[in-house]
Every structure is written in C-alpha cells, then in structure tokens.
C-alpha cells in the first residue's frame, strides 16, 4: 500500500483557467494506469499534480487532496523535494541536460541523492540504460553530450534518468510520441517489467497502446474524469457514452 495514490476533489487552475474540476480517483500500486482523453483535457496537468510540479508554473493554483501511501503530499509539512524524489517523471518532450554527457544525464538524479561512488554510479547507469533499451546504442559514447542523440534516443535517455533514482511511482507523459515503432515496443516491454516494482501512470494518445500496456484506464474530458475502470472494461463495455465515442474515434 506504500505507493497507492488517492486523489480527492482535486481542482487545478492556471490563473483563472480551471484545468481540472474535482477529480476523484484511486490508483492502485504496482499496476499501470493509462490516462487518455483529447488534447487539452488536463491529462498532463493531472499527472503534474501528483508530483507537485503543477505549482512551479507561475500563477498555477490547486485545491484538493492527493494521498501517496496514505500521506497527503500537499499537507503543510510535506516537502515537495522529497516527494519528487519518490515520483519519477518522463515528459512529453525529451529534455536531457545539454551540458551533461549521456552518463551524467543518467547519473544526475543519483548525484542529487548523494550517491557519488564511481562503482555504484557505473552499475546503476548501465542498468538504467539497459532498462530503457538505450544501452546498446550508447555504450561506446557515454561521454558524448545528451543532446547529440536523436529525439527518440533522447526520450529513452530521459526514461533512464528517471529510472536511475528508483522512485516508487513513475509518471509518463506521452513517452512514445517521438518514438519509432521499434523503440515504442521496447518501452512498452519496459513498462511490463517496471510494474512489478513501480506504480506507473502513463498518459497516451494511442488507444492501442493504452489497451496493450495498462491495467486500468482513466478517461478525461474537459478537465473532468469521465470514467475510470479496468482497461478491459473501458475498451469493451464503457459505461459512459462519451468514453465510447472517444475510444471508437467518433470524438472530434
């Protein structure tokens, strides 16, 4: 029950724009939960509320409760830094640190956590890169800059960077939107591996992907959670008409 996420009555705002309207959802640990919905419906905003990244946007506000393993991450004594160390995130666009080498990009989070011994770092960097299916392509140029890689490789580098710190929860914001089918397949395989140990939330625009990789699916529309259920049920017998319209492609 450590990494279970319970969200109640979550409202998120950008200035006066209300991006999330009263979200209630309970995400189980060690499963993959997919978040689907049309562009602009608040998927990214939702997962950014879970690792307290929403609040770093100027003018952004939020209200409601987010419990991680029973503890409110927005309570006054919760430290956003420690919370973010427990919750990894892979962003919609790859964002490696350009001044750092491939190796140092993966090791960046470890160094923040005080792991400095070369032996420890070497092992974790290699393992993380192998997990993100990048090791074979970069093992001979670990000292090259992180941005010397292709877009898809950069995204896998960012995944390795998030994995390296061994978080309890990993948030993926459309991790495959810049990847070719082969790397996408590798990432999906990785998700299967990861869910043994991690709680995973993945935003995706790809229905097939949601159906393939997730155990649960949440459908968002215009800032509201329309439906949340087992993935199988969402895709075979959705209860809400709007969900059905969206997954069958009848939605704009």
């Amino acid at each position, binding site marked *: 029950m450590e990494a279970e996420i319970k969200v109640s009555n979550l409202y998120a705002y950008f200035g006066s724009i209300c991006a999330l309207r009263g979200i209630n959802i309970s995400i189980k640990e060690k499963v993959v939960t997919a978040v689907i919905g049309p562009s602009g419906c608040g998927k990214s905003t939702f997962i950014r509320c879970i*690792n307290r*990244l929403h609040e*770093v*946007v*100027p003018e952004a506000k939020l209200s409601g409760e987010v419990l991680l393993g029973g503890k409110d991450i927005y309570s006054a004594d919760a430290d956003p*830094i*420690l919370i*973010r*160390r427990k*919750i*990894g*995130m892979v*962003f919609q*666009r790859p*964002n*490696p*640190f*350009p*001044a*750092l080498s491939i190796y140092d990009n993966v090791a*960046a*989070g470890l160094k*923040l*956590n005080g792991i400095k011994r070369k032996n420890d770092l070497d092992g974790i960097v290699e393992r993380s890169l192998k997990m993100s299916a990048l090791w074979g392509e970069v093992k001979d*140029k670990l000292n*090259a*800059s992180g*941005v*010397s890689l292709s877009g898809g490789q950069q995204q896998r580098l*960012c995944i390795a*960077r*998030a994995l390296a*710190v061994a978080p309890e929860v990993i948030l993926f914001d459309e991790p495959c939107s810049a990847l070719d089918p082969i790397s996408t397949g590798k990432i999906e395989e990785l998700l299967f591996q990861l869910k043994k140990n991690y709680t995973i939330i993945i935003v995706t625009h790809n229905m097939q992907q949601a159906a393939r990789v997730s155990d649960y699916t949440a459908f968002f529309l215009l800032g509201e959670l329309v439906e949340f259920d087992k993935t199988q049920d969402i895709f075979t017998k959705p209860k809400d008409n709007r969900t059905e319209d969206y997954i069958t492609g009848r939605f704009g």
Partner: protein
Amino acid sequence: MKIKSADLWFKKAAAILALSAAALVILLVCSMAYYALPAIRKFGLHFLHTSTWDPVKEIFGALPFIYGTVISSALALLMALPVSLGIAVYLAELAPCCLREPLSFLIELLAAIPSVVYGLWGIFFLAPFLRETVQPFLFRYFGFLPLFQGEFYGVGMLSAAIILSIMIIPTISSISREVFLTVPSAQREAALALGATRWETIRLAVLGYARSGVLGAVILGLGRALGETMAVTMVIGNRPEISGSLFAPAYTMASVIANEFSEATTDLYLSALIEIGFILFFVTLIINIAARALIWRVSAKIKAK
C-alpha cells in the same frame, strides 16, 4: 525576373558593405603599423619585454603597461564574475516578480554611466576608503602575502581593478540574466522532477544550459575592461612599474596613450605610444578570438559529436 535582379542587387550591396568593414580593419592595422614602424625598428621585440619607459633618453619598453592592462582586467573579471552571476541568478530565478523589472533596469542603468563619473567616484570615495580602511585591514590579516604589502596609497592596481569590476558587472549580469531567461522551463522541470532543490535546479538546469551564453557575457565584460581608459587612468596611479603588490600604483596601455599622447614631442615617443595602441589592439583581438573559439567549442560539443 524583376525579383531576381533585386535579390541580386541586394546580395551585391550586402557583400560590399561586409567587405568594406573588413577593409576598414585592415586599413586600421596597416596605418597603425606604419606609424609605429620607427619604434618597432628601434626596439624590436625588446619593446615587449623591457620595463624602462624614459621619454628623455628615448628608451621605451612597454611591459609595465601590458602587465597593468592584463592584470587589472583579469582581477576585475575575477571579482566581477561571481557577483554578476549572483545578480543574474537572483534577477532571473529568485527575485519576487515585482522586483525583477525595476532591479534589472537599475543594473542596466549602471552600464550607461560615463566612465569619467566612475573615475571621479573612484578618486573621491573609493581611493580614500581603500587607503584608510581596506588596505590596513588586508595588510593586518593577509600581510604575509606579497600581494598585500607596501604603502597604502589608495590609488593603484587594487582600486583600478575594483573600479573596472564595478564597471563590467552590469554588462556581465544583464547579459547573463537574459541568457538565463532563455532557458526553457522544461529544463528546470526536468531537474525539479528529479527532486532537485532550488539551488540544484539552478546549477543543473540553468547554469549548465546557459554556460556558452555566460561565456559570451564574460568576453564582452573583459573587452570593456581591457579597453577602459578614463576611469582607470584616474585611479591606477599611473606609474610604469611592475609590482607584486596590489597596493602599488601601476599603468595600463590605454592610460599611457591617453595621458602622454599630447606630450609626445619626438617622433620616436609618438611612435612608441602608437605601438602600444597596436599591441592593445592585438591583445583584445587575441582574447576575443580565444573566447570565441571557446564558445564555439562548447556549443559544438553541445550540438553534435
């Protein structure tokens, strides 16, 4: 047809303008070399590494001036860089929103103050302050270092370096601030999502991303320090000597040209001053090329390998 020929004309005009800029530089170098020729012939390479500057006997060695320029600028940079980076980080990342704009404006205003005003301030405030407070303090606690020994004049290498650093802080900090503002928020969020503190985020995401731009800011600052004439002339003490002490008076290339040009009565004297100008030109050129190459290497490393 018409569009094509207009395009062609534009291309030609632009090429001519670009070439004329290059031609101007060449003209400058050639004419300076021509006027400096008597001194170059007479002293050769000795000019660069001897320290006697005697207009009466007409013996000229420029080493103290080269030394003064290089050391005062380097010291100024050493002092200005941390301060400027601190200011830039504060203005771009930490300051409350309502303070950012007014403070940035104030800093940019500092860059617009004429250097003679800085010089006056140096003579009437900084030099006495150094003489009465700072230099005795430094001597008392760090006097075992040769850097902080000797008479307390107030004017000298230390005050020149301080004035210079105050003059280049606005340049370096306002450019660095602008560079920091171009760092995409995705970079900051990448660091934050790893659990970086505010300072770690700045170090990892902002300084790393912005470093070639900051280097550019440093070069501009250094360029200003090397060529600065008026303020330095007013506070450096104008004595053509090389001393290991920061308290001692010194002289820079720009200052000696400004001070002695009107008194240079003989051809050789004049020619020696022009040769110093020539050297100053080259020192600035070399530093700029080196810095440009550094930026180029850093950004090339970032782009591809």
